[in-house]
């Protein structure tokens, strides 16, 4: 038996080196740095995730126009094109586009680079629109305060159970396109049951980026997430 590893060979030239490195931790370290930056500047960072076309950009366009208690800045992630960032700028907020190329998710390093370009003001609200994908973005912490998962009523009610990682990782579920409900046989109760089965703490807000219905609940939720320290500063001054 060899002395290196106990294998059957008489001896061999290879040896074993302990590494013990968590591969998911590389991104986590960078995310922690982003989180510290947000805390120091009392910035509320929210990571918006959904499948392609659920209405992330449409919701942000309306949010930019309606949320007036803090400055709003946006990081847009897409594989290609600068279209979504252009839409946000047209709606009136500063925005930076990240193109991931073949990449299917944003990671903490990309967000760090976008932050340095965007230089968000203290006490602002930073929305990060992730690449449309219900799988990979769940694995990558960007340093956000919360993940918001968006599902539109034209998708299946059983999406949460099909994509449990994402629905577990999110704190809030926005149910978009409710203006279409009269034309569909979408079962809202079934969707909520499916999401609660993977994440019993999930909160739901139904809204429509088209009509604006339900937006007050969403804006109140955002307001309630704003860092406490910043609130105290605002109230004090």
């Amino acid at each position, binding site marked *: 038996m060899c002395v290196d590893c106990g294998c059957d060979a008489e001896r061999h030239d290879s040896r*074993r080196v302990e*590494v*013990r490195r968590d591969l998911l931790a*590389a991104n986590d370290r960078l995310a922690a740095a982003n989180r510290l930056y947000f805390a120091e500047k009392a910035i509320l960072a929210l990571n918006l995730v959904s499948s392609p076309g659920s209405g992330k950009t449409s919701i942000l366009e309306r949010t930019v126009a309606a949320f007036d208690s803090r400055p709003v800045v946006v990081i847009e992630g897409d594989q290609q094109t600068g279209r979504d960032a252009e839409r946000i700028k047209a709606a009136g907020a500063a925005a930076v586009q990240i193109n991931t190329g073949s990449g*299917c998710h944003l990671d903490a390093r990309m967000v760090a680079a976008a932050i340095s370009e965007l230089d968000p003001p203290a006490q602002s609200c930073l929305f990060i629109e992730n690449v449309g994908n219900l799988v990979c973005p769940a694995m990558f912490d960007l340093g956000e305060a919360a993940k918001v998962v968006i599902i539109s009523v034209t998708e299946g009610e059983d999406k949460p159970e099909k994509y449990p990682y994402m629905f577990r990782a999110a704190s809030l579920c926005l149910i978009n396109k409710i203006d279409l409900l009269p034309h569909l046989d979408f079962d809202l109760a079934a969707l909520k049951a499916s999401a609660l089965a*993977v*994440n*019993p703490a999930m909160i739901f807000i139904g809204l429509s980026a088209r009509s604006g219905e339900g937006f007050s609940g969403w804006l109140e939720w955002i307001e309630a997430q704003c860092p406490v320290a910043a609130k105290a500063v605002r109230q004090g001054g």
Partner: protein
Amino acid sequence: MHELTLACDMVDIACETATREGAERVEAIELEIGLLSGVLAEALIFGFATACRGTVAEGAGIELFPEPGRGVCRQCGRISSLETFLTRCPECGSPGLCVSGGDCLRLRAIRVS
């Protein structure tokens, strides 16, 4: 395909370690993979085959050590094995157990020469 990102990190760590050890080649990589990590072993191995090209880890074998999922019930505290996130507590039937194991991806060791 978030596995490609992870495969690149894996190559970097293996190569750094080998260089630090004064080794010329990485022959094998021992990888602990949690069954609830959300990482697909096949995709990771496929990504590794691409990412290792032209490095000292080129052609290294990957030895997998699967780690079963474990969960703690938020209601009664019972620890049980968790096959999916939909598994309910076998004691009280509560859903949404808190994951307490099997959610990591760790490069345990490498074999160098």
